[in-house]
């Protein structure tokens, strides 16, 4: 579904990605783990079109997409929940959801999807007239994911969804991520610092170090790998 081939990306003179290659198959949850500053966010930003790769190719459903404007990528079905949630603080919860469906014209289906979201997250319905900025961290994360779902993504990019959330909430969130993957057949590329949790949820994983992919395997295999255990599980 998504394929990166030898992607280099840089901010000015600082190269953040070196020859990154990865694949995500339809229906999978793939996770990208690595330390702070390894290039995980840059990888997602490159896929979303906010960072233009210096070299390499990005294919989505077999077609090259590198260099396309972000709105064109959303139109093709690639949506991202960025790190730090980026809720539109002064827009109401309902308006935030509307913005997720910004490019959609099938208004009836949008309304039905909104109901479904409210069903999935009743707290969002209770707070639909409140400004997004007044929500708690956990609620904002629910809203951020819901907003992305309102676009009916084929590929959902999640950047550090657990950041700043209490452990119990994180667990709940990852259950929801699994449900979205299974029930809506949404393919997910998940970036996480909490490698253990990410590998429990994902089918496959890639390990990023200093902008390079150093390892990739089935998630269960990566969890057993001594190198991953010592570097990312703190054991």
């Amino acid at each position, binding site marked *: 579904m998504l394929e990166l081939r030898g992607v280099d990306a840089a901010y000015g003179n600082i190269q953040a990605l070196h020859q990154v290659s990865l694949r995500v198959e339809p229906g999978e949850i793939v996770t990208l783990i690595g330390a702070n500053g390894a290039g995980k966010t840059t990888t997602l930003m490159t896929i*979303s079109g*906010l960072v233009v790769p210096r070299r390499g190719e990005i294919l989505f459903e077999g077609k090259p997409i590198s260099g396309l404007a972000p709105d064109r990528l*959303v139109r093709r079905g690639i949506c991202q929940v960025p790190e730090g949630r*980026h809720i*539109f*603080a002064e*827009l109401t919860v309902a*308006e935030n959801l509307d*913005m997720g469906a910004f490019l959609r014209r099938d208004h009836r289906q949008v309304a039905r999807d909104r109901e479904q979201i409210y069903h999935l997250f009743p707290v969002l319905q209770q707070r639909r007239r409140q400004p997004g900025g007044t929500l708690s961290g956990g609620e904002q994360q629910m809203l951020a994911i819901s907003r992305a779902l309102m*676009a009916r993504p084929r590929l959902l990019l999640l950047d550090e969804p657990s950041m700043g959330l209490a452990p119990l909430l994180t667990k709940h969130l990852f259950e929801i991520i699994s449900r979205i993957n299974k029930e809506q057949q949404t393919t997910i590329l998940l970036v996480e610092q909490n490698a253990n949790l990410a590998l429990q949820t994902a089918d496959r994983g890639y390990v990023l170090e200093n902008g390079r992919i150093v390892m990739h395997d089935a998630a269960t295999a990566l969890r057993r790998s001594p190198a991953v255990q010592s570097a990312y599980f703190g054991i």
Partner: protein
Amino acid sequence: MEYFFALLFSGLTKGAIYALIALGYTMVYGIIGLINFAHGEMYMIGAFTALIVSSVLSIYGLPLPAILLLAGLAAAIWTGAYGYTVERLAYRPLRDASRLAPLISAIGMSIFLQNYVLLAQTPDFVSFPRLVPEFAFLEPYSAIITSSGLMILVVSTLVMATLTLVIKFTRTGKAMRATAQDRKMALLVGINVDRIISLTFVTGSALAAIGGLLIASHNGQINFAIGFIAGIKAFTAAVLGGIGSIPGAVLGSYVLGLTEAFATGYVSSDYEDVFAFSLLVLILIFRPAGLLGKAAAEKV
């Protein structure tokens, strides 16, 4: 008492014009954080466009209300095109540059546009036709209220109400607010941010053009430099109300207009600007974010 009401009315009229211009400052600032110093020029170009169009139309002998409407429409569209072009040429290439670069570019644009109109038109004041018909029902109150003044109040109120509704309820309006709050996230939900920014410039310029037409018809004369002082005043009003905030710009404009009118009326017209800018200094000392502005720290 009649004097008081005359001053009140003149202050509201001034405030309404300032508001039409200040909205452009505040919308552009809200969305790209730029003080568009060329914005006053849009008001001036709007007045000149309206002059040219209304002169041509009056040759054909159209009735006054039709001329007013068509001249207003033409001024708004043509000036909107100027706003679009200025952004494309002078600001967009500098979008990722330091904040100072587009600011200087804006000042350059302002000087360029003034001199361009000076060369293309004339350095002198030219008289502007009275496009607003005299309303008979206002005759008993002629010492307080003029028909062009009333027209300013009515038109600006309608325009501002429409703008507010558009921004609050339409898809594009929500996209504008979203872009102003978080440009990166706006890109990620698929908003064409460049188009929203262009639209903001076009809207702001069109509003300023309507202000230019109304005040030109009220004052009866225009020249190439009218945009400068009006622009500075409207900018003051926008800062007074809290730059970036739309209700703030409107409130700030009325406060400024009324202050000027009463200072002129009860003290001396020489002190009009002294009072206006003293008010600005006071507000900046005691409420640096403006009357309705939020503390800058909120924008993380």
